[in-house]
């Protein structure tokens, strides 16, 4: 077992011993289920209206548009609120309990610590997202829809989540207080969200496009609509790399204080 694997194993163990994963997981799954139920309900109401207008004919409703697109779009705000809770302990707790000094004096490199911690929380997130596949699976039994935009929607959720987790990891490295870490990452995520609004103020100018590009909104929306664009993949990949790099710098710099 390599040092990175050892860190991943230890972090996973830490998550499952503490109540965090159970609470966050329960809330995440409950909200996902509730939103699915609501959107399916709305879609049903619309179908009934359509049938009344067409007087008896079977209405074709598009679950992809009415349920899944809305569902994935709504999950953005859920992730903004929930993921900082998952990441807040990663470095803050080590610093509070003075195990940080132990990690830093172990013969491992800082990037191994950062990657180990990121991978552990990302695996937990993947597990939670994986459980939600139950919703489209169940819906498949009763209706017919296109799985492709659902898979891209899931890809979007995984990429967006990875980005959020790296922002949370960064915030956790800044402080030894977990609450502060959660609020800082919450604030950062909302700010990056609102940058999209700032971009739209500038309209369809170069400045507007550049500013909007910084926000995750348009990149996520395209994936939810079923579009796979390399520029969006590049956005998530480089955003993740940047946040992990910044985390590395912060962890490194705590040695100098």
């Amino acid at each position, binding site marked *: 077992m390599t040092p990175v694997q050892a860190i991943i194993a*230890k972090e996973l163990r*830490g998550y499952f011993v503490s109540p965090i994963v159970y609470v966050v997981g329960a809330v995440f799954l409950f909200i996902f289920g509730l939103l699915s139920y609501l959107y399916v309900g709305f879609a049903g109401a619309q179908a009934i209206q359509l049938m009344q207008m067409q007087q008896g004919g079977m209405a074709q409703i598009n679950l992809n548009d009415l349920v899944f697109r809305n569902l994935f779009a709504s999950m953005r705000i859920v992730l903004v609120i929930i993921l900082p809770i998952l990441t807040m302990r990663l470095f803050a707790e080590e610093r509070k309990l*003075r195990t940080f000094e132990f990690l830093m004096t172990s*013969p491992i490199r800082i990037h191994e610590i950062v990657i180990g911690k990121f991978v552990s929380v990302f695996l937990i997130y993947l597990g939670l997202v994986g459980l939600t596949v139950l919703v489209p699976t169940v819906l498949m039994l009763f209706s017919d829809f296109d799985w492709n935009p659902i898979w891209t929607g899931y890809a979007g959720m995984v990429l967006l989540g990875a980005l959020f987790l790296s922002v949370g990891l960064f915030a956790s490295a800044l402080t030894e207080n977990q609450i502060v870490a959660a609020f800082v990452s919450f604030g950062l995520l909302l700010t990056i969200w609102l940058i999209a609004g700032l971009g739209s103020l500038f309209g369809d100018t170069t400045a507007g496009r550049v500013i909007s590009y910084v926000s995750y909104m348009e990149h996520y929306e395209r994936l939810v609509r079923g579009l796979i664009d390399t520029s969006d993949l590049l956005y998530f990949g480089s955003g993740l790399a940047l946040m992990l790099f910044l985390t590395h710098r912060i962890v490194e710099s705590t040695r100098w*204080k």
Partner: protein
Amino acid sequence: MIDVHNITKRYGHHTAIDRVTFSVAKGEVLAFLGPNGAGKTTTMRILTCFMPATEGTARVAGFDCADQPLEVKRQIGYLPETPPVYQELTVAEYLTFVGRLRGITGPKLSSALDQSIGRLELGSVRHRLIGNLSRGYRQRVGLAQALLHDPPVLILDEPTVGLDPKQIIEIRELIKSLAGSHSVILSTHILPEATAVCQRVVIINQGRIVAEDTPEQLSARLRQSEKVSITLKACPADCEMKLRAIPGVLNVFPGQAGGSFLLECELGRDLRDEIARVAVLSLWGLLELRTVSMTLEDVFLQLTRHEDHLFEPPEAAVSMVTAEKTEA
């Protein structure tokens, strides 16, 4: 094994340690002694590559702490001030994690685990969560962590804090048994500990090394007089005068209990037989007679107090002088 040369660490304007130089030979146990906030932990953190020094060089087993931190870290077992334990892991899980971080795997890991658990008598708590263990056990788990990979250099920051007297003795015995094959630096402010386990003592105060020697020589060097304590059954009024009259006795201080005195004698003279003769001939009823040697505690207090005196602001002295002049 450890070479520290002119290390300085500044935090902004505050100088935590100031041109500290010392070395530790292979197999030697060195005590780092000093009041709280003297710079012991800072020095240890520099040696373990947790933080870099502002100036100066530190080398461990031939590797430079600034340039080859990974190599240095491999050579060191480190116990920080607070035992670095994860409460959510059991003792065995924690030590396994530590071993894996150090790249020990497979059968080697399990034998290292058994050895360090055995050494620190942690067998009975092997499968218990560290969060549920007492302070003393956590300290021992921290020590087991430092010893796990059998490092040539051990750096222990107050290793006996939080242990009960029996455990303290056991840990001291353990550290003594490590001498010879391991180089050990331990910090402490418990002075008998330094005398008990270390061959050499470095006293540090306000970031500077104020003394470095064996415990015995340190006390010898700072002793300005021989001290003898006597206790008498009967002491007439003239006994203090008679004691003072013994040639070689510099001063006599009456003790707290009636009939006990502390005699200051000339350096290098043992006046016990002379004092005994006077006491017996005068029929004072000699109950006790012993030399008082200077303990490391006295040395320590003397040195650290001395430093305080040195750091007295010169302006105060100058203003006193000018005040006297104006009065005249």
